[in-house]
């Protein structure tokens, strides 16, 4: 039993979720509120990667970042950054693919917040940034948590994109989803079951823990 793929998967999911929290929350905030056509179109564009089958999305990423291609060549020559067949590439692909699952629910949550909450913070001399972090984010914690859990789980199970641009390199891009798939394809069902169960259990424990912790913090010390 090889633990490397599972650890690699957890690492990928963790990093992707973290990056998406950093990118997603501000973007969601920026998209919320005003309903200009520009923002609607942007929101629609963010949803688009979902529409393609993951392996096809992977194919286009492969084309874009292939060292034969202008962009891929430039990245390689300038930053020695190779995005195909590397862990960094998987992170980038997962971020693109899971983007809407982070941004859309959080944006809706921002939309549902009363305007007066922001106004009250402004009159207390707090900047947009302070208000964002100290008032708005804590009040949509449940939605952010949900989005983070979905992103995490989705990245764990992410397979098509990884299959395409990962190249199944042990220890680098051979994540759990690929290992399980390999076992199924080679009819080693015992191994597939074993991996699946393990992935299930670990994630289940993580998700339940996060939810339970959140539940505790939602209750006041008085209740």
């Amino acid at each position, binding site marked *: 039993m090889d633990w490397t793929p599972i650890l690699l998967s957890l690492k990928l999911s963790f990093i992707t979720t973290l990056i998406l929290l950093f990118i997603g929350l501000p973007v969601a905030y920026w998209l919320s509120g005003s309903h200009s056509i520009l923002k609607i179109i942007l929101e629609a564009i963010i949803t688009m990667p979902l529409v393609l089958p993951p392996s096809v999305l992977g194919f286009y990423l492969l084309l874009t970042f292939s060292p034969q291609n202008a962009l891929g060549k430039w990245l390689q020559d300038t930053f020695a950054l190779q995005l195909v067949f590397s862990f960094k590439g998987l992170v980038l692909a997962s971020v693109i693919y899971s983007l809407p699952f982070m941004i859309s629910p959080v944006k809706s949550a921002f939309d549902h917040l009363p305007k007066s909450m922001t106004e*009250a913070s402004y009159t*207390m001399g707090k900047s947009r940034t302070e208000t964002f972090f100290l008032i708005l984010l804590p009040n949509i914690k449940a939605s952010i948590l949900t989005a983070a859990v979905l992103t995490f789980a989705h990245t764990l199970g992410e397979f098509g994109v990884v299959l395409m641009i990962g190249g199944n390199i042990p220890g680098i891009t051979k994540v759990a989803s690929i290992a399980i798939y390999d076992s199924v394809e080679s009819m080693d069902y015992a191994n597939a079951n074993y991996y699946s169960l393990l992935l299930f259990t670990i994630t289940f424990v993580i998700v339940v823990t996060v939810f339970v912790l959140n539940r505790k913090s939602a209750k006041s010390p008085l209740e």
Partner: protein
Amino acid sequence: MIEVDILKNIKTYNGHHPLRIKTTFATNKITQIFGPSGIGKTTLLKILAGLVQPEQGFIRVNNEVWLHTQKQINWLPQQRKVGFVFQDYALFPHLTVEQHLLYGTPDKEYVARLLAIGQMQAFHQHKPKQLSGGQQQRLAILRALAIKPQILLMDEPFSALDYTLKKSLLTDLKPLLIELQTTCLVVTHYPLETEGWAELSFTLE
């Protein structure tokens, strides 16, 4: 002195109707503002705080021009540093009473003093939804005072308080406002409740 000259279009069922206010308020004094429901009292306070933008207008506070639509001058709410007691409180659901006040000032002693003025010491760990209506309103008042505001704008701040509580609150607030040299504008429907406390009156009609 606070100089106000504003024009705001209020949208109603049958088109727009203009709200025109041109007046001055004395600084370092308490002025009560009257006017029938829906006339625009809340709107006036929000314009002063920079939360609502009038179509045309000019606001000068002592020597500072806060708003001058023609000259494109428009201070942010943050720059105006006004304390605002919202008619619907607009409390922060995730913060306790004490955290509300600490959000406006790091001064723990001052926070303790405010809690005492509002008789809220026993509730300093409560969150808004664990407070009664009157307790919430007191918190809204205390929070507005937390930033030691130059101008305190209060929108019906005593409507949910019983007589005894209100009397003691008014009595305790007065020296604080004098000490902070705060100009106070208070919207009220009960001239009686602020009688003797407010020094000036202004009626919107």
